[in-house]
């Protein structure tokens, strides 16, 4: 039935319609992508314009009266300190949990266990905040006292012990709980990718399960663990509510983890101060927000870089 003219006729009839559909569709897809770029540019521009007055204001007008750096520095310190402690607690635990799920748990329940750990990530941060305040903080007092009694000569545990338990140690532990599922998820992923061949080669050499893990799984997963930890660190640095709720803050710079005067974090400080702030105080907070953004951005980029470099070297195609 179809002839040459038929094809030509169809082209003429169908082409404009089809091309229009394709153009509209690809155009709107592209538009959405560009919108994201525009919004991000907006984020940068608006934040800078809101931060600008604080950058040029005389030091005496900034809260605290000693200038921007003096205001933000203790917050940066608190942010880094709490995030580092959280990371130090969470990473080994996460590696162990990931190992348990991938190599120790019976195969049938492993997936369910993985899901259980993922649920930890689903709990809203405000809930962790309430829990940290109401449960973990009081429960920590005994432990902190013990630390102070026996390890008080270490500056970290110098005391005096906070009676409420709302210390930077507890805030960090809450953060550790919150980033645990993130680090675990990444570690689990790379452990599962360990070539079966390597594992079997190790077992064939007569290795025990732990020796197999030490010989093939951990070396293979090392960069994955590092990048997972970096992602967790990025999350811990920016976490707001858990810290704002748990921590009793007093803008000091100290390594004392268990006393009642603790450094605040940038995010928590914004959440605590912002609702009551006006004018230059708002600009100051936005500036500290920019600093936080820069820190997390650096950490996340480093994590991505490690992940990507690993991907290139893994040769898993």
């Amino acid at each position: 039935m179809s002839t040459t003219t038929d094809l030509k006729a169809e082209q003429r009839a169908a082409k404009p319609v089809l091309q229009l559909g394709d153009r509209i569709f690809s155009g709107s897809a592209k538009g959405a992508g560009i919108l994201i770029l525009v919004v991000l540019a907006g984020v940068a521009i608006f934040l800078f314009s809101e931060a600008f007055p604080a950058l040029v204001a005389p030091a005496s007008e900034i809260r605290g009266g000693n200038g921007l750096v003096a205001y933000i520095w203790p917050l940066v310190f608190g942010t880094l300190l709490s995030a580092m402690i959280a990371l130090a607690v969470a990473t080994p635990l996460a590696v162990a949990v990931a190992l348990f799920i991938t190599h120790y748990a019976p195969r049938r329940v492993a997936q369910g266990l993985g899901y259980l750990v993922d649920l930890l990530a689903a709990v809203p941060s405000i809930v962790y905040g309430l829990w940290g305040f109401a449960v973990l903080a009081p429960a920590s007092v005994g432990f902190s006292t013990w630390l102070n009694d026996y390890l008080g000569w270490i500056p970290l545990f110098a005391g005096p012990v906070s009676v409420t338990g709302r210390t930077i140690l507890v805030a960090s532990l809450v953060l550790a709980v919150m980033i645990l599922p993130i680090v675990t998820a990444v570690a689990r992923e790379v452990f599962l990718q360990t070539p079966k061949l390597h594992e079997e080669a190790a077992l064939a050499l007569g290795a025990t399960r732990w020796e197999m893990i030490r010989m093939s799984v951990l070396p293979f997963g090392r960069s994955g663990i590092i990048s997972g930890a970096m992602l967790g660190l990025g999350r811990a640095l920016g976490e707001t509510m858990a810290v704002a709720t748990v921590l009793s803050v007093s803008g000091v710079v100290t390594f004392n983890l268990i006393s009642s005067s603790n450094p605040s974090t940038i995010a928590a400080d914004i959440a605590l101060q912002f609702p009551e702030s006006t004018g230059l105080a708002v600009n100051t907070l936005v500036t500290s927000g920019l600093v936080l953004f820069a820190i997390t951005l650096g950490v996340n980029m480093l994590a991505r870089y490690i992940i990507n470099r690993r991907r290139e070297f893994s040769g898993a195609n």
Partner: protein
Amino acid sequence: MSIDTQRERSPERELDTSLDAMPVIRGQLPRWSPWVGLVAVVLIVGGVLSATGLSIGLFAVVSAVVYAVGMYTASRVVEGPRKATDRLVTIIVTAAFLVALIPLVSVVYTVVSEGLSRFDAEFFNSSMLGIVGEGGGAYHAVMGTLIITGLAAAMSIPVGLLTAIYLVEYGKGRLARAITFFVDVMTGIPSIVAGLFAFALFALFFGPGVRMGFAGAVALSVLMVPVVVRSTEEMLKIVPNELREASFALGVPKWRTILKVVLPTSVAGIATGVTLAIARVMGETAPLLVTVGLATGMNLNPFDGRMATLPVFAYYSYVSPGVPREPSLERAWTAALVLIMIVMALNLLARLISRVFAPKTR
């Protein structure tokens, strides 16, 4: 056991010891030993500690340490150092997993037990307007959370889906690479910074001190879009190219191929990802704190002033309860419970979606 008699006769024994390797047949702890050992340790430590009267935490820690040391020693004596290390690591890894479960269990237990006392009809059908002390509820906060999250989803899902489609199906070259990079950047934006951004944007148009639901929705969108893009991208990428080619070969234009073949094939995964993204932003507190604030009464208009949301409601009810404290704290816990229930329900829904809508083969 017969193993022991074999061990005596084993001709390889000398060879084994000389190579310092684990012999093929050698002393082994019986299979039941880990369990019996565990029960024994628990009983003994429990007995000793209950006599001196100490806490559960201490009991668990001491039991674990005693058990690990005991098993290691026993295994080292009977099975040799390599096997003993293996057993020790097994114990440590298992213990770590159990430790990781403690917060989950504790959080769920605390929130449920504290939250149930106000989990009543009044909580769900009244606001805080004119309430001092007892009574009151979070109807307004539930509605606020639903409205703001709904708005955020309505903005982020189309943008996220289309961007992912662009990246996977159309994008090559500089623009696509730039978008990929900045979506990565966006993934790392702390939620409070997203809140500040939305605030700064709206302050520009409405003056400083602006608070409205829509600003909160914009902040949540900034957090939600990258999640939607990433998960959708993953899902589109695993649709085999063969299906696209099959469709092209039938004379189907590209856009219809994407709409009718690629998206339906990956719809389960995409819907799962979107649901998880919604669950994720629904619990966000910080960005709403700075953009939306809190209201005591019902406000259903996201373009007009402060609104209440569940997370912010829970936060303020807990940290500034007023006098008397108890009713406000109870409301905070119940709000947390409701929040957790919604988020968990969304997570379950996501699982269900990925089960039910996955392409069938039978």
